[in-house]
């Protein structure tokens, strides 16, 4: 059984296609582990909000390209008839009438739904401590956070409780937990994956992506995620097929290091691992040079106007009328709205709704929202200028390794600073991947590689070459 669990998702799909592994056996092996974690409650990692029953194996066809390999899906993706709660009390027990387009696409390619994963409420958080269903623990150290908001997905993959998982990234919610858990996470180019059926946080930024054990798995899953969807007006046809990476060298590849995102504010141990990765890149033939992203230090400020503003609008739909929680014995309609939202939303979600409503309110709109949108323009320009000089940009993914549970919950601003290195790419809508590049204090450090829009194949190739060279051992976390 343990041999089955040691296979990457791509290896498992190959083994199923070759007839040497049964899709049922694979599913049951993971299902048993996921169910045990769920049953363990606080004693486990608390990765899941729902796990498939024993009789639900199958779904994905063994003959389809993904061969029935089980998939863990972040709670905020709607899955028909299966609880989809976005980590919120206000959606507790909600059973959607339809399935998100990207999940349907993956079913069509042969993925099988294994479990729904715990997350920060409405994807707002960087530690997974904001979930109504309890904090998720980091498999490398149970007293530390897995990152967020896709913390359940990242912890499950790192701990070998799922072969791979879907996450979503608004300002770093795939890349940062992947970094803190020592695995791979890719945020694709905005628009390449349909958002239809994703419970929205900030629509101009939200993007689904793969969370996997290795780069090859990320490419394989992404291949079947991308594509235009008539149900999402911002989705685009990906211009080419996602290829499985094979590069062994980085000869002639110019990598840009922005000072703004790789110096001040980054933990020393993280910088050491980052610089060691740059040295690897040079050994593989890459040319490493400095680039400037002068507006990147302002990205976080712009993001914490734009994302809450969009969230305050998106979350207006939770009013106790059509689904989810309703406050008891309302005196009138307004009382029902305000008390339902008071009872149903957690503190961080309330904070962001308030922040967004304030920023959009009369008299402040131009000073905050309008201004943040113009900063966004400058950040996108910075990247365009940089990509005229280099093919890819590399930074640490997160400023620190996984921090202790409870360490940053009292200070929202300290928590927001986790997104410092990932938010600029989100605002520019460009793809970025995090791969593990070493350890600091015995905990994983993530390397972020970003490229221009639709450069995923180049990104994956570079990530693959570095991954092979670094040879990061994620096994200790999976025992």
């Amino acid at each position, binding site marked *: 059984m343990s041999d089955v669990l040691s296979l990457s998702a791509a290896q498992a799909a190959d083994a199923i296609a070759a007839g040497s592994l049964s899709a049922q056996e694979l599913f049951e092996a993971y299902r048993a582990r996921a169910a045990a974690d769920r049953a363990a409650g606080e004693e486990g990692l608390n990765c899941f909000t729902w796990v498939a029953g024993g009789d639900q194996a199958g779904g994905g066809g063994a003959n389809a390209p993904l061969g029935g390999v089980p998939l863990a899906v972040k709670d905020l993706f709607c899955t028909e008839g299966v609880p989809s709660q976005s980590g919120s009390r206000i959606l507790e027990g909600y*059973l959607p*009438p339809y399935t998100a387009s990207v999940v349907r696409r993956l079913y069509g390619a042969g993925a099988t739904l294994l479990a729904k994963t715990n997350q920060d409420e409405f994807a707002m958080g960087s530690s997974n401590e904001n979930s109504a269903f309890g904090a998720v623990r980091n498999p490398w150290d149970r007293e530390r956070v897995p990152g967020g908001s896709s913390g359940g997905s990242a912890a499950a993959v790192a701990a070998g409780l799922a072969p791979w998982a879907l996450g979503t990234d608004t300002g770093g919610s795939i890349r940062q937990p992947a970094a803190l858990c020592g695995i791979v996470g890719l945020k694709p180019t*905005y*628009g390449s994956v349909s958002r239809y059926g994703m419970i929205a946080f900030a629509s*101009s930024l939200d993007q689904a992506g793969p969370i996997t054990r290795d780069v090859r798995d990320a490419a394989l899953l992404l291949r079947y995620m991308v594509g235009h969807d*008539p149900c999402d*007006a*911002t989705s*685009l046809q990906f211009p080419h097929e996602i290829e499985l990476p094979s590069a062994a060298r980085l000869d002639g590849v110019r990598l840009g290091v922005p000072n703004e995102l790789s110096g001040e504010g980054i933990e020393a141990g993280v910088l050491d691992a980052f610089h060691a990765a740059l040295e690897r890149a040079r050994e593989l033939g890459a040319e490493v040079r400095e680039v400037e992203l002068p*507006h990147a230090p*302002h990205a976080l*400020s712009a993001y*914490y*106007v734009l994302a809450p503003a969009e969230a*305050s609008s998106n979350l*207006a739909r939770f009013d106790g*009328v*059509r689904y*989810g*929680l*309703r406050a008891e014995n*309302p*005196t*009138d*309609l*307004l*009382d*029902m*709205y*305000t008390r339902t*939202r*008071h009872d149903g*939303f957690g503190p961080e979600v*309330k*904070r962001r*709704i*308030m*922040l967004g*409503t*304030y920023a959009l*309110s009369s*008299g402040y709109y*131009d*000073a*905050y929202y309008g*201004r*943040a*949108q*113009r*900063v*966004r*323009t*400058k950040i*996108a320009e910075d990247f365009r200028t940089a990509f005229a000089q280099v093919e890819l940009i590399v930074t640490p993914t997160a400023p620190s390794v996984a921090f202790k549970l409870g360490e940053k919950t009292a200070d*929202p*601003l300290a928590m927001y600073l986790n997104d410092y290195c990932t938010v600029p790419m989100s*605002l*520019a*809508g460009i793809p970025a991947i995090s791969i593990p590049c070493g350890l600091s204090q015995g905990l994983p450090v993530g390397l972020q590689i970003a490229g221009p*829009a639709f450069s995923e194949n180049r990104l994956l190739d570079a990530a693959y070459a570095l991954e092979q060279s670094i040879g990061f051992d994620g096994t200790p976390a999976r025992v």
Partner: protein
Amino acid sequence: MIVPAAGRWRSVQCATVIERDEVLHVARLARLALAEDEVEPMARELSAVLDHVAKIGELDLDGVPATSHVVDVTGALRPDEPRPCLPREVALSQAPAVADGGFLVPSPQA
């Protein structure tokens, strides 16, 4: 705090302070009830975040266009053809209260 001044923006060095009344006003706009003990912490936390956010007031952004969306898609309309919608019983299946085939809500004016 950033304040509008004759069409330009200036950054004022003092810390952003959101007062209690302002918190309650914004909460009303957001249709969000706040318990008494939530008001002061909310005022403090919003002030701290807005203080950080106010750094964008230092940038010269005159003449810079706004970006609302990074994807260059305009007029993404589908053909205007009738299609089946969600069956009524499915649409109502998750509602907290239902009456006469619709969503039941309390009166706007009790």
